[in-house]
Protein backbone atom coordinates (compact mmCIF):
# COMPACT_ATOMS: atom_id res chain seq x y z
CA UNK A 1 0.00 0.00 0.00
CA UNK A 2 1.49 3.40 -0.87
CA UNK A 3 1.66 5.92 1.94
CA UNK A 4 -0.92 8.66 1.96
CA UNK A 5 0.08 11.94 0.42
CA UNK A 6 -1.23 14.54 2.83
CA UNK A 7 1.09 17.48 2.41
CA UNK A 8 3.74 19.02 0.21
CA UNK A 9 6.51 17.21 2.09
CA UNK A 10 5.09 13.87 1.07
CA UNK A 11 5.38 14.41 -2.72
CA UNK A 12 8.04 12.00 -4.04
CA UNK A 13 11.32 13.75 -4.78
CA UNK A 14 12.51 13.96 -8.38
CA UNK A 15 15.88 12.43 -7.49
CA UNK A 16 14.26 9.05 -6.83
CA UNK A 17 16.04 6.44 -8.99
CA UNK A 18 13.67 5.11 -11.63
CA UNK A 19 13.19 1.38 -11.77
CA UNK A 20 14.70 -0.36 -14.83
CA UNK A 21 12.65 -0.83 -17.97
CA UNK A 22 10.67 -4.03 -17.90
CA UNK A 23 11.07 -5.23 -21.48
CA UNK A 24 8.90 -8.27 -20.90
CA UNK A 25 6.03 -6.10 -19.70
CA UNK A 26 6.32 -3.86 -22.74
CA UNK A 27 6.40 -6.89 -25.01
CA UNK A 28 3.28 -8.32 -23.39
CA UNK A 29 1.43 -5.03 -23.71
CA UNK A 30 2.41 -4.74 -27.36
CA UNK A 31 1.24 -8.32 -27.98
CA UNK A 32 -2.12 -7.69 -26.35
CA UNK A 33 -3.21 -5.32 -29.08
CA UNK A 34 -0.86 -6.40 -31.81
CA UNK A 35 -3.55 -7.40 -34.34
CA UNK A 36 -5.29 -4.09 -34.38
CA UNK A 37 -2.24 -1.88 -33.94
CA UNK A 38 -0.06 -3.52 -36.55
CA UNK A 39 -2.99 -3.54 -38.96
CA UNK A 40 -3.33 0.22 -38.53
CA UNK A 41 0.39 0.87 -38.66
CA UNK A 42 0.76 -1.12 -41.87
CA UNK A 43 -2.20 0.58 -43.50
CA UNK A 44 -0.81 4.09 -42.99
CA UNK A 45 -0.18 5.51 -46.44
CA UNK A 46 1.72 8.53 -45.15
CA UNK A 47 -0.72 10.82 -46.91
CA UNK A 48 -0.61 13.32 -43.98
CA UNK A 49 -4.27 14.17 -44.43
CA UNK A 50 -4.75 13.53 -40.71
CA UNK A 51 -2.81 16.72 -40.09
CA UNK A 52 -5.78 18.74 -41.28
CA UNK A 53 -7.88 17.46 -38.42
CA UNK A 54 -5.48 18.38 -35.61
CA UNK A 55 -6.00 21.82 -34.15
CA UNK A 56 -2.56 21.77 -32.54
CA UNK A 57 -0.98 21.23 -35.95
CA UNK A 58 -2.77 24.28 -37.24
CA UNK A 59 -2.07 26.30 -34.14
CA UNK A 60 1.67 25.65 -34.29
CA UNK A 61 2.00 26.86 -37.85
CA UNK A 62 1.79 23.42 -39.41
CA UNK A 63 4.76 21.97 -37.54
CA UNK A 64 5.05 18.32 -38.70
CA UNK A 65 5.79 17.19 -35.15
CA UNK A 66 2.14 17.85 -34.28
CA UNK A 67 0.84 15.70 -37.09
CA UNK A 68 -1.12 12.71 -35.76
CA UNK A 69 0.61 10.22 -38.06
CA UNK A 70 4.01 11.61 -37.02
CA UNK A 71 3.12 11.28 -33.35
CA UNK A 72 1.93 7.72 -33.76
CA UNK A 73 4.64 6.45 -36.11
CA UNK A 74 7.43 7.81 -33.92
CA UNK A 75 6.03 6.39 -30.70
CA UNK A 76 3.87 3.32 -31.13
CA UNK A 77 5.33 2.68 -34.58
CA UNK A 78 8.83 2.68 -33.17
CA UNK A 79 7.80 0.45 -30.26
CA UNK A 80 6.44 -2.17 -32.63
CA UNK A 81 9.35 -1.85 -35.04
CA UNK A 82 11.86 -2.42 -32.23
CA UNK A 83 9.61 -5.15 -30.80
CA UNK A 84 9.55 -3.31 -27.50
CA UNK A 85 13.32 -3.36 -27.01
CA UNK A 86 13.76 0.27 -26.06
CA UNK A 87 15.81 2.15 -23.54
CA UNK A 88 14.55 4.61 -20.96
CA UNK A 89 16.03 7.51 -22.97
CA UNK A 90 14.06 6.50 -26.03
CA UNK A 91 10.86 6.31 -24.00
CA UNK A 92 11.57 9.70 -22.47
CA UNK A 93 11.90 11.15 -25.96
CA UNK A 94 8.48 9.82 -26.84
CA UNK A 95 7.01 11.58 -23.82
CA UNK A 96 6.90 14.99 -25.50
CA UNK A 97 5.18 13.67 -28.62
CA UNK A 98 2.55 11.85 -26.61
CA UNK A 99 1.74 14.38 -23.94
CA UNK A 100 2.81 17.82 -25.04
CA UNK A 101 2.00 17.45 -28.73
CA UNK A 102 -1.31 15.71 -28.18
CA UNK A 103 -4.38 16.61 -26.09
CA UNK A 104 -6.23 13.38 -26.83
CA UNK A 105 -9.23 15.41 -27.90
CA UNK A 106 -9.84 12.43 -30.24
CA UNK A 107 -10.74 14.63 -33.17
CA UNK A 108 -7.99 13.46 -35.51
CA UNK A 109 -9.38 11.73 -38.53
CA UNK A 110 -7.80 9.34 -40.96
CA UNK A 111 -9.40 8.84 -44.38
CA UNK A 112 -8.40 5.18 -44.11
CA UNK A 113 -10.14 4.66 -40.78
CA UNK A 114 -6.99 4.25 -38.72
CA UNK A 115 -7.83 4.83 -35.06
CA UNK A 116 -5.24 7.47 -34.19
CA UNK A 117 -6.47 8.54 -30.73
CA UNK A 118 -6.43 4.99 -29.44
CA UNK A 119 -2.90 4.50 -30.67
CA UNK A 120 -1.73 7.56 -28.79
CA UNK A 121 -3.64 6.41 -25.71
CA UNK A 122 -2.10 2.94 -25.97
CA UNK A 123 1.42 4.36 -26.33
CA UNK A 124 0.76 6.53 -23.27
CA UNK A 125 -0.32 3.51 -21.26
CA UNK A 126 2.85 1.64 -22.26
CA UNK A 127 5.01 4.53 -21.12
CA UNK A 128 3.05 4.83 -17.90
CA UNK A 129 3.62 1.14 -17.20
CA UNK A 130 7.32 1.98 -17.07
CA UNK A 131 6.84 4.90 -14.75
CA UNK A 132 7.02 7.59 -17.42
CA UNK A 133 4.08 9.96 -17.26
CA UNK A 134 3.85 13.23 -19.09
CA UNK A 135 1.17 14.70 -16.83
CA UNK A 136 2.78 14.04 -13.50
CA UNK A 137 6.53 13.93 -14.14
CA UNK A 138 7.33 12.79 -10.63
CA UNK A 139 4.61 10.18 -10.57
CA UNK A 140 5.55 6.75 -9.36
CA UNK A 141 3.76 5.30 -12.34
CA UNK A 142 1.90 2.02 -12.28
CA UNK A 143 2.01 -0.05 -9.08
CA UNK A 144 5.03 -2.34 -8.83
CA UNK A 145 4.23 -5.85 -10.01
CA UNK A 146 3.78 -8.42 -7.21
Amino acid at each position, binding site marked *: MSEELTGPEKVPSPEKVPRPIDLEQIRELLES*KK*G*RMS*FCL*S*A*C*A*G*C*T*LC*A*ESCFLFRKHE*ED*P*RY*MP*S*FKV*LNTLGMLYKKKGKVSREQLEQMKELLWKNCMLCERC*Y*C*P*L*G*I*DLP*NMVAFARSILRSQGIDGVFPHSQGAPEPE
Partner: protein
Amino acid sequence: MWVATMVFIGGIAYRVAQFFRLTKKKEMAYCPTQSIRMDSPEERKLRLVLFLQNTLLGRHPVMAIVALVFHFCLFAIPVLTHAHNLLLRESWGISFFSLPNAVIDVMTVVVLLGVVFFLVRRLVVPRVRAVSSFQDYLVLALAAAPFLTGFIAYHQWASYRTVLTVHVLAGELMLAAIPFTKLTHMIFFFFARTLFGTEFSLWRGRRTWSN
Protein backbone atom coordinates in the same frame (compact mmCIF):
# COMPACT_ATOMS: atom_id res chain seq x y z
CA MET B 1 -0.15 -14.58 -63.71
CA TRP B 2 -2.12 -17.13 -61.75
CA VAL B 3 0.29 -16.96 -58.85
CA ALA B 4 -0.01 -13.22 -58.61
CA THR B 5 -3.78 -13.27 -58.83
CA MET B 6 -4.02 -15.96 -56.20
CA VAL B 7 -1.68 -14.04 -53.92
CA PHE B 8 -3.73 -10.91 -54.50
CA ILE B 9 -7.07 -12.53 -53.88
CA GLY B 10 -5.78 -14.57 -50.98
CA GLY B 11 -4.07 -11.58 -49.46
CA ILE B 12 -7.11 -9.36 -49.81
CA ALA B 13 -9.33 -12.03 -48.34
CA TYR B 14 -6.94 -12.34 -45.40
CA ARG B 15 -6.90 -8.57 -44.86
CA VAL B 16 -10.68 -8.31 -45.04
CA ALA B 17 -11.10 -11.20 -42.62
CA GLN B 18 -8.58 -9.54 -40.33
CA PHE B 19 -10.56 -6.31 -40.53
CA PHE B 20 -13.78 -8.03 -39.54
CA ARG B 21 -12.05 -9.97 -36.82
CA LEU B 22 -10.60 -6.80 -35.35
CA THR B 23 -13.83 -4.85 -35.40
CA LYS B 24 -17.22 -5.45 -33.96
CA LYS B 25 -20.76 -4.16 -34.22
CA LYS B 26 -21.38 -1.44 -31.73
CA GLU B 27 -24.34 -0.70 -29.53
CA MET B 28 -26.44 2.04 -31.01
CA ALA B 29 -28.15 4.99 -29.41
CA TYR B 30 -31.79 4.96 -28.56
CA CYS B 31 -33.17 8.05 -30.22
CA PRO B 32 -36.76 8.79 -29.19
CA THR B 33 -37.34 11.89 -31.31
CA GLN B 34 -36.87 12.51 -34.99
CA SER B 35 -34.67 15.43 -35.92
CA ILE B 36 -35.91 17.74 -38.61
CA ARG B 37 -33.41 18.18 -41.40
CA MET B 38 -33.70 21.65 -42.86
CA ASP B 39 -33.50 21.67 -46.59
CA SER B 40 -34.21 25.19 -47.70
CA PRO B 41 -32.23 26.56 -50.65
CA GLU B 42 -30.12 28.66 -48.27
CA GLU B 43 -29.35 25.59 -46.16
CA ARG B 44 -28.32 23.60 -49.20
CA LYS B 45 -26.15 26.41 -50.49
CA LEU B 46 -24.55 26.72 -47.08
CA ARG B 47 -23.80 23.00 -47.00
CA LEU B 48 -22.13 23.32 -50.37
CA VAL B 49 -20.07 26.30 -49.25
CA LEU B 50 -19.02 24.42 -46.10
CA PHE B 51 -18.10 21.40 -48.15
CA LEU B 52 -16.00 23.45 -50.52
CA GLN B 53 -14.36 25.48 -47.83
CA ASN B 54 -13.81 23.45 -44.71
CA THR B 55 -12.90 20.06 -46.11
CA LEU B 56 -9.74 18.86 -47.80
CA LEU B 57 -11.08 20.24 -51.06
CA GLY B 58 -11.05 23.71 -49.59
CA ARG B 59 -7.80 23.52 -47.71
CA HIS B 60 -5.71 21.61 -50.23
CA PRO B 61 -7.67 21.65 -53.49
CA VAL B 62 -4.69 20.65 -55.64
CA MET B 63 -3.93 17.54 -53.61
CA ALA B 64 -7.59 16.58 -53.42
CA ILE B 65 -8.19 16.89 -57.14
CA VAL B 66 -4.94 15.25 -58.19
CA ALA B 67 -5.55 12.32 -55.85
CA LEU B 68 -9.11 11.92 -57.14
CA VAL B 69 -8.19 12.02 -60.81
CA PHE B 70 -5.12 9.84 -60.29
CA HIS B 71 -7.01 7.10 -58.48
CA PHE B 72 -9.85 7.17 -60.96
CA CYS B 73 -7.49 6.66 -63.88
CA LEU B 74 -5.51 4.09 -61.90
CA PHE B 75 -8.60 1.90 -61.56
CA ALA B 76 -10.04 2.59 -64.96
CA ILE B 77 -6.98 1.79 -67.05
CA PRO B 78 -6.40 -1.90 -66.21
CA VAL B 79 -10.08 -2.61 -66.63
CA LEU B 80 -10.88 -0.62 -69.73
CA THR B 81 -7.79 -1.16 -71.87
CA HIS B 82 -8.53 -2.88 -75.14
CA ALA B 83 -5.41 -5.03 -74.98
CA HIS B 84 -6.32 -6.32 -71.54
CA ASN B 85 -9.89 -7.02 -72.57
CA LEU B 86 -8.70 -9.04 -75.58
CA LEU B 87 -6.61 -11.23 -73.31
CA LEU B 88 -9.48 -11.55 -70.89
CA ARG B 89 -11.81 -12.64 -73.69
CA GLU B 90 -9.22 -15.19 -74.87
CA SER B 91 -8.78 -16.65 -71.38
CA TRP B 92 -12.19 -16.48 -69.78
CA GLY B 93 -14.60 -15.46 -72.53
CA ILE B 94 -15.70 -12.31 -70.78
CA SER B 95 -14.54 -8.75 -71.08
CA PHE B 96 -15.42 -5.24 -70.02
CA PHE B 97 -16.09 -2.54 -72.55
CA SER B 98 -12.95 -0.84 -73.85
CA LEU B 99 -12.09 2.78 -74.18
CA PRO B 100 -10.35 3.97 -77.33
CA ASN B 101 -6.58 3.54 -77.12
CA ALA B 102 -5.99 7.27 -77.44
CA VAL B 103 -8.04 7.88 -74.32
CA ILE B 104 -6.18 5.18 -72.42
CA ASP B 105 -2.95 6.77 -73.56
CA VAL B 106 -3.93 10.13 -72.12
CA MET B 107 -5.09 8.52 -68.89
CA THR B 108 -1.76 6.71 -68.55
CA VAL B 109 0.05 10.00 -68.90
CA VAL B 110 -2.25 11.40 -66.21
CA VAL B 111 -1.33 8.52 -63.92
CA LEU B 112 2.37 9.00 -64.56
CA LEU B 113 2.08 12.72 -63.92
CA GLY B 114 0.25 11.89 -60.72
CA VAL B 115 3.11 9.65 -59.68
CA VAL B 116 5.56 12.47 -60.32
CA PHE B 117 3.35 14.82 -58.30
CA PHE B 118 3.28 12.42 -55.35
CA LEU B 119 7.01 11.84 -55.57
CA VAL B 120 7.77 15.54 -55.57
CA ARG B 121 5.30 16.09 -52.75
CA ARG B 122 6.91 13.35 -50.71
CA LEU B 123 10.35 14.87 -51.23
CA VAL B 124 9.52 18.53 -50.93
CA VAL B 125 6.65 19.04 -48.48
CA PRO B 126 8.19 18.88 -44.98
CA ARG B 127 5.26 17.25 -43.22
CA VAL B 128 5.11 14.44 -45.78
CA ARG B 129 8.85 13.96 -45.74
CA ALA B 130 8.67 13.64 -41.96
CA VAL B 131 6.66 10.42 -42.19
CA SER B 132 8.19 8.96 -45.34
CA SER B 133 10.24 5.82 -45.28
CA PHE B 134 11.87 3.60 -47.87
CA GLN B 135 8.65 1.60 -48.20
CA ASP B 136 6.79 4.70 -49.38
CA TYR B 137 9.17 5.30 -52.28
CA LEU B 138 9.33 1.61 -53.12
CA VAL B 139 5.57 1.33 -53.26
CA LEU B 140 5.33 4.42 -55.45
CA ALA B 141 7.79 2.85 -57.89
CA LEU B 142 5.84 -0.40 -57.75
CA ALA B 143 2.64 1.41 -58.63
CA ALA B 144 4.25 3.41 -61.41
CA ALA B 145 6.06 0.49 -63.07
CA PRO B 146 3.08 -1.24 -64.73
CA PHE B 147 1.83 2.02 -66.18
CA LEU B 148 5.23 3.16 -67.39
CA THR B 149 6.06 -0.15 -68.98
CA GLY B 150 2.58 -0.45 -70.46
CA PHE B 151 2.97 2.98 -71.99
CA ILE B 152 6.38 2.13 -73.45
CA ALA B 153 5.11 -1.22 -74.75
CA TYR B 154 2.09 0.37 -76.40
CA HIS B 155 4.22 2.96 -78.17
CA GLN B 156 6.77 0.26 -79.04
CA TRP B 157 9.70 2.48 -78.10
CA ALA B 158 11.97 -0.40 -77.13
CA SER B 159 12.17 -4.13 -77.70
CA TYR B 160 8.50 -5.04 -77.54
CA ARG B 161 8.78 -8.51 -76.05
CA THR B 162 11.12 -7.45 -73.28
CA VAL B 163 9.07 -4.44 -72.28
CA LEU B 164 5.89 -6.48 -72.39
CA THR B 165 7.37 -9.16 -70.16
CA VAL B 166 8.52 -6.51 -67.71
CA HIS B 167 5.05 -4.97 -67.88
CA VAL B 168 3.37 -8.24 -66.99
CA LEU B 169 5.83 -8.89 -64.20
CA ALA B 170 5.42 -5.37 -62.86
CA GLY B 171 1.65 -5.70 -62.91
CA GLU B 172 1.82 -9.02 -61.07
CA LEU B 173 4.23 -7.65 -58.53
CA MET B 174 1.99 -4.70 -57.83
CA LEU B 175 -1.07 -6.93 -57.53
CA ALA B 176 0.71 -9.28 -55.17
CA ALA B 177 2.06 -6.41 -53.10
CA ILE B 178 -1.32 -4.81 -52.53
CA PRO B 179 -2.41 -6.84 -49.50
CA PHE B 180 0.93 -6.61 -47.77
CA THR B 181 1.95 -2.98 -48.13
CA LYS B 182 0.22 0.32 -47.56
CA LEU B 183 -1.53 -0.28 -50.89
CA THR B 184 -4.19 -2.09 -48.86
CA HIS B 185 -5.70 1.34 -48.60
CA MET B 186 -7.25 0.41 -51.90
CA ILE B 187 -9.62 -1.96 -50.16
CA PHE B 188 -9.48 -0.61 -46.67
CA PHE B 189 -10.60 2.88 -47.68
CA PHE B 190 -14.03 1.65 -48.73
CA PHE B 191 -14.50 -0.59 -45.73
CA ALA B 192 -13.41 2.05 -43.27
CA ARG B 193 -15.33 4.91 -44.78
CA THR B 194 -18.62 3.03 -44.96
CA LEU B 195 -18.51 0.65 -42.03
CA PHE B 196 -16.90 2.68 -39.26
CA GLY B 197 -19.31 4.87 -37.37
CA THR B 198 -17.37 8.10 -37.20
CA GLU B 199 -18.18 11.70 -37.96
CA PHE B 200 -17.28 11.35 -41.61
CA SER B 201 -18.67 7.96 -42.50
CA LEU B 202 -20.33 7.79 -45.89
CA TRP B 203 -22.96 5.34 -44.75
CA ARG B 204 -24.64 4.53 -41.46
CA GLY B 205 -21.50 2.93 -40.07
CA ARG B 206 -22.19 0.31 -37.43
CA ARG B 207 -18.71 -1.00 -36.66
CA THR B 208 -15.96 0.02 -34.36
CA TRP B 209 -12.60 -1.36 -33.32
CA SER B 210 -12.92 -4.06 -30.72
CA ASN B 211 -10.41 -4.24 -27.97
